[in-house]
């Protein structure tokens, strides 16, 4: 039976270091299997977050050989020879071992002005497949937060967390802005308060997305273009004046619909 050395970071806010575990590796196993075996034998207190072990819940994100990956979807046999390093997501504060405090993402979720639809007709809304398809791509998101983790805007610049929603929430804003029923207009909100301008479209979010959502091309760039319409483009501004259209200011957009 093959053996592998897992170099797992262990520690908490007071510090930590790598510990090596040499352990058997069976056919078809993923990183999470091996971590579980370490837990069940050598280190029952090794902290790692997981739920479905099927790539559907997005709980077990960590950095494997330095790259954000889902532990449950990374097969051991696809990794290069030699020790496998497993570290917690870097962008979020450490709780313990491989578990991080991802509350930043929940704070950003609370700031999303929810869908603002017209009242629903008795027999439900009518929407067409072509209208819902763009949003459906973004709703595949399993909230593993690896896009947030890899995004250098907050990974390497802690202070930006105050005014930057991050890729996971840009796809949420894109979904809402492309929603055929939505009556809000979050373009100024996204620009002013959610920090869309901080994104320099280096596409790492798209690279790490386990759901293969084209975050940059299909959400962030279209959002940036919508912000250009709302804020930067003089011709669009003139068009609004002539057609007596208005846009919502950030403050107008940034309210939750009444329940």
């Amino acid at each position: 039976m093959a053996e592998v050395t897992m170099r797992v970071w262990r520690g908490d806010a007071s510090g930590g270091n790598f510990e090596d575990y040499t352990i058997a590796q069976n056919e078809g196993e993923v990183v999470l299997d091996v971590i579980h075996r370490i837990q069940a034998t050598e280190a029952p207190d090794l902290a790692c977050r997981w739920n479905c072990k099927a790539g559907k819940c997005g709980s077990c994100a960590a950095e494997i050989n330095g790259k954000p990956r889902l532990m449950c979807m990374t097969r051991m046999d696809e990794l290069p020879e030699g020790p496998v390093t497993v570290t917690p997501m870097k962008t979020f504060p450490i709780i313990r071992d491989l578990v991080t405090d991802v509350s930043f993402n929940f704070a950003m979720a609370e700031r999303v002005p929810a869908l603002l639809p017209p009242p629903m007709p008795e027999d439900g809304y009518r929407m067409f497949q072509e209208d819902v398809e763009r949003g459906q791509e973004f709703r595949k998101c399993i909230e593993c937060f690896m896009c947030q983790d890899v995004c250098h805007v907050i990974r390497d610049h802690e202070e930006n967390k105050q005014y930057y929603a991050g890729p996971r929430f840009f796809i949420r804003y894109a979904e809402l802005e492309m929603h055929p029923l939505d009556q809000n207009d979050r373009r100024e909100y996204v620009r002013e308060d959610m920090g869309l301008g901080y994104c320099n479209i280096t596409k790492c979010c798209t690279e790490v997305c386990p759901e293969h959502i084209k975050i940059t091309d299909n959400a962030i760039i279209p959002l940036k273009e919508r912000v250009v319409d709302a804020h930067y483009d003089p011709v669009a501004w003139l068009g609004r004046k002539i057609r007596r259209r208005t846009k919502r200011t950030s403050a107008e957009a940034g309210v939750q619909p009444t329940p």
Partner: protein
Amino acid sequence: MTTSPYEHHEYDVLIIGAGGAGLRAAIEAKQRGLSVGIVTKSLLGKAHTVMAEGGMAAAMGNVSSEDNWQVHFRDTMRGGKMLNNYRMAELHAKESPDRVRELEQWGALFDRTKDGKILQRDFGGHRYARLAHVGDRTGLELIRTLQQKVVSMGTDVFMECKVLQLVHDESGRIAGAVAYWRPTGEFVTFAAKSVILASGGVGKSWKFTSNSWESTGDGHAMALWAGAELIDMECIQFHPTGMVWPLSVRGLLVTEGVRGDGGVLRNSDGERFMFNYVADMFRAETAESEEEGDRWYEDHSAGRRPPELLPRDEVARAINAEVKAGRGTPHGGVYLDIGTRRSAEYIRRRLPSMYHQFMELAGVDITREAMEIGPTCHYIMGGVKVDADTAATKVAGLYAAGEVAGGMHGANRLGGNSLSDLVVFGRRAGLAASDYVEGGAGPSGFNWGEVESAVARALAPFENEGGENPYDIQRDLQEMMQANVGIIRTGSEIDLAISELETFTERVKNISVKGGRAYNPGWNLATDLPSMLTVSKCTSRGARDRKESRGGHTREDFPKASAEFGTFNLAHTIAGGAWDGEITTERSALLTMPDELKALLEEGK
């Protein structure tokens, strides 16, 4: 009230569990203007609801205009082998269309029909195309929609906070719960005027399961300890199609949608064996030949349904029999083939996550190769006995909805009925709990003694030196339950399980936990094991006493359903509330169905 020595919160409605049912209940109570706290073992949005793939059943008639609640009711009752709480099945069939539609107000985006309505797909046991869906990730859509709604309403959510025990007032009404924060290991108490259990299932007590670590039956066990009754605990659904290889993902779910979209089951001889396993009850509406079954996929009026779409218990038993007869695959399953029957493009569009799951985990391209599948522990039909209209348990102030509640699905659940169950009864639990709070019948105190004993029990493994590793106990328990109370059961094995479970009880009392309290998975498992044992005991006792085969309960020594056993549920109670206390199992008569509903069941038989 005594000041809590721990972090303390007070709510009108406390909800335990943040899956579909818990979140839907929260929305209802929140809309009433009550204060609501949701406690979940995991992060918000990770609950087992995300694993539901195929869709949510609701007789909207968008695809088959003949469909209506009566047919849905009939399908549910027949699928449940008539052991259901008929009133729950009735409410569910009547209300699920509204519950599905309202999700779109909150942002859900279901797949559409050509005329812009919600698209519905075929599924096992459902007479008409009835499952509203989004590709094969409907559960994710449901939980995300509810989660976003709950968050936008400003609800307090306690994440990675595990409830250990419910707390009463002096008169036995529910008064709250005691929990601990997984990140820090610190305890926290919740005083609440009402509590809604929405804690999901029990599947982690079996070795091959589609359930995550969370499904340890906490809610079932806590309800029992708190004085509620559990019913139908022997009725466990083994989903016919779980992955069997690689071993590390054995049990992982393969959606029924594969069969709904044209996939067929074959044994190692290449035979579509399901035609040999059509029970009399379903013969009239099942195709007799492969050609007829294939015609049905094209046009439902041109043939009858293929037998691959029989209810899950029927299909799981058939697969089990084929493997036992030596016609299984190299890894001990059978083949599920869609690659030779549908185009690659169709498969990737309709079943994207299945495509990726097999590609990435097994290296199998399902557009070209057959999948190897076998039954996997998936769902418990049984659960806390509740009043159908209010989701109220026997204990004042305690409600239960979703998988933790029993009765709705009888002896076997139809695919797609679970997601709609969550929202129908989640809402009803939210409504009833709110009524209870507003009616002023809430608790008059908080039993701190219960808190202290729960805390002491949780901390005991740290005091104990040289005891057992909880992981060893869990592994042994899973193997024992799989072997003795698995998909096919027999009296002697069940008796063995019951006596083994007593040994496990002693082992659990002798657990030692290494390390500190902060995010310690070993400790967390130690706090899960009492629940796992409690539900396993109920399942085994129910399995022992139900001397017949019905739905998710199959006895080798009693292979037929018996009319006598079809008239009652088996109800479990525990005396005194101790987790290792004596369990009493009694017959509890089914509700009597009104004549007009009985008439519905006779139709189209």
